[in-house]
């Protein structure tokens, strides 16, 4: 079976800075993979290139067998890639349910219609999605008043409304309490199992990474330096060097 996502030699330079430098990897349908690396490693730049928000200097991205390099974000989303942002993105002037309804409308491609009342459209689907992420009881509150952890879950519901085949999540649990983190990641991985959705996420919390990712990729200074199962990555000397400096206790990474 061919890969769902095929990234070939992708690079992005800002002057002399090689933010992403010749990165290649593949994702198969249903994979749940983490992308880790220190701050400034190029994780967010890589995501931006996959979504078409930033143009690569060189390299190709294939999704579902078709080349998507250089397409505009809206086009790439139509092909079936969704994402959540490191700085949570929701629409503050709408209610929680309306946020999800709007995402459903966007998925429909009905956004130029000026005839129906939008608040009656996709209400049930929005409620079902909110139920999935555990926000059903807050459906009619203004999104602007939600707590940060709830905003993260709302954004997940917004992203899921697009029925992505591949979901990119940029630090999905940053700023959440420990129990919330586990809840959110379990929800996401359950959906991935049930629907065959593929997930690529970045994360600084190693507990989350090792508990939920099937495989882990490590990015450092723009280049992939390791890829493998959590155990393999944990044991990799270079990864330990990047994260902890040389000569530290190998067990430390497991506890990081």
């Amino acid at each position: 079976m061919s890969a769902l996502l095929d990234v070939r030699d992708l690079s992005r330079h800002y002057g002399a800075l090689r933010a992403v430098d010749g990165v290649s990897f593949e994702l198969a349908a249903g994979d749940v993979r983490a992308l880790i690396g220190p701050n400034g490693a190029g994780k967010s730049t890589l995501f931006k290139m996959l979504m078409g928000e930033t143009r690569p200097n060189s390299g190709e991205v294939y999704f579902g067998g078709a080349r998507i390099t250089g397409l505009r974000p809206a086009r790439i989303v139509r092909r079936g890639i969704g994402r959540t942002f490191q700085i949570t993105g929701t629409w503050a002037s709408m209610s929680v349910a309306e946020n999800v309804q709007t995402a459903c409308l966007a998925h429909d491609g009905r956004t130029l219609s000026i005839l129906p009342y939008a608040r009656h459209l996709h209400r049930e689907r929005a409620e079902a999605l909110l139920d999935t992420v555990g926000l059903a009881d807050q459906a009619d509150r203004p999104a602007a008043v939600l707590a940060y952890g709830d905003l993260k879950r709302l954004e997940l519901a917004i992203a899921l409304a697009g029925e992505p085949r591949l979901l990119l999540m940029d630090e999905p649990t940053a700023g959440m309490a420990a129990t919330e983190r586990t809840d959110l990641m379990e929800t996401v991985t359950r959906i991935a199992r049930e629907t065959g959705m593929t997930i690529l996420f970045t994360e600084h919390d190693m507990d989350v990474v090792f508990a939920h990712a099937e495989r882990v990729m490590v990015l450092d200074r723009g280049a992939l330096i390791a890829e493998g199962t959590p155990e393999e990555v944990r044991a990799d000397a270079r990864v330990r060097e990047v994260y902890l400096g040389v000569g530290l206790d190998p067990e430390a990474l497991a506890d990081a």
Partner: protein
Amino acid sequence: MGPILAQILTGLANAGALFMVASGLSLIFGVTRIVNFAHGSFYMLGAYIGWTLMQVLPGSFGFWSAILLAGIAVGAIGAFVEIVILRRVYAAPELFQLVATFGVILIVQDLALMIWGPQDLLGPRAPGLRGVVRILGEPVPKYDLALIAITPLVALALWALITRTRFGILVRAATQDREMVGALGVNQRWLFTGTFALGCALAGLGGALQLPKGGADLLMDFTILTSVFVVVVVGGMGSLPGAYLASVLISVVGVFGVTFLPQSTLALTFVVMVAVLMWRPFGLLGREEVAGEMGQVGPPEDPIRPAGWPVRVGVALALVVLAALPLYGSGFAVILATDILIFCLFAASLHFLLGQAGLVSFGHAAFYGGGAYAAALLVRHAGAPMELALLLAPLSAGLLALGIGFVALRASGVYFAMLTLAFAQLLWSLVWQGGAFTGGSDGLVGIWPARWADPNAIFYLLTFALCVGGILMLRHAAHAPFGYALRAARDNAPRAAASGLDVRRLQWAAFTFAGAMAGLAGGLFVFAKGSVFPNELEIARSFDALIVVFLGGVKTLSGGWVGGAVFEAGVDWLTRFEYWRLTLGLVVLFIVTIAPQGIVGTARAFWARVQR
């Protein structure tokens, strides 16, 4: 070779004043993030003050000190304006700051009229520089050569100030990160005042320096503003070398235009601008400008809801009463109500663009006047009946918006605002120079409604149906998927794009939709008045609409038409006074500083307090 060199020299000389005004605008924007729309007014003040000083101070020494003193005086006036008005609105969203600077424009216009009178003032010749020099056989005025020498000197002095002094270091630091400069303990208030004063002094200097070439008149504030916006857009906001480069480029193109294409000088400038913009959206030497928060103040608005049944019944009853106006109102009341309805639709269309899409357009009159001229031209040249003209007016305005939007939406934030204004001014100049086809400054007259709609009462009902229908349609669009998608793009554009919304296409559609609605209002206006003049396309008309939206309240659904009604009725009353602009300007400044939520917002806040 000679003629071409002479042209280039004239262009370089003309670039002087343009550069000084543009660099001042750029400097102020860099530090305070305010696009000073009143910058043209400071330029005008510099010219008038310089003129007065030259009458008093004798000889060569007097001439040059008059120019210098004019710059200093305008700088002082700028400092006063900054301390009294702008300090209160730095924290407010861009729209409020812009409206505050419009207020200053209005006040300066009337003050200049009061002090110096309505007649154009001829600038005195520079002592010792009266004649011409022959270069390659072509006469070049000596004063032009002086200007060509002075401008780079001013630019160098500015460059030294920015790169070599502590003040300059602070200015550059604040341009990069205002908050950080504040956090390091720099007194931002005086930094802002100093920068604003410096920028205004530059504008004043430019105004005084061009006196021997252009004199002083009451239109020079808007004339220079359009050119300066083009320069800033072409050169890149915040870049001094960019401002110089673009001033020279635009001036030289302008001079060649006068020679080879005298009818379309401004159009030629715009072709250059559009070309640069297509190639570099942030100007030749500019950097990407993060679009600011547009039209929002305070916490995000509550989710909107369609009105409940009691409100709907109430509105329906009020509309019935309004529709029956011809039965009980005087003839004058019917005509005034017609005007108000038309203006309400115009304002509501801009309010939709601003409120729903978050796009601050400074050239909305292009579509209002565009629709008006489309209707009038169809009647005049194609013999179209009123019904067809009223159908084609919004279509033409929509097409116009489609074209202007295509270019203007390549930019965002302040660049977008400046581009819309520049395009409206282009349209105005095309109509103004349109000769027999558009009637030029004489306008097109004798465009009356079809016979059946000719009685005032019938035309009122027609206007009522179309305007109320248009306003309700705009309002309904806010509740429809289109409105939600627009607000999604406005609230968080990256999130909208990541959900598959094509942000630019949505904004383009909103721009076109609002333009078409403004065009409908313009079409009705022509038949209500029986005529149309270029002033329907003026900057002032765009400002009217902006002030109205702001007056009504941006973050409310009703702000557009409520503000429109109050404004049109108020202006009808105000314009009976000689210095009504002064009054309007003061009212605007009062609202900006005291009641920034507008009429509807303030009323709502008051109501909430009463209920508690």
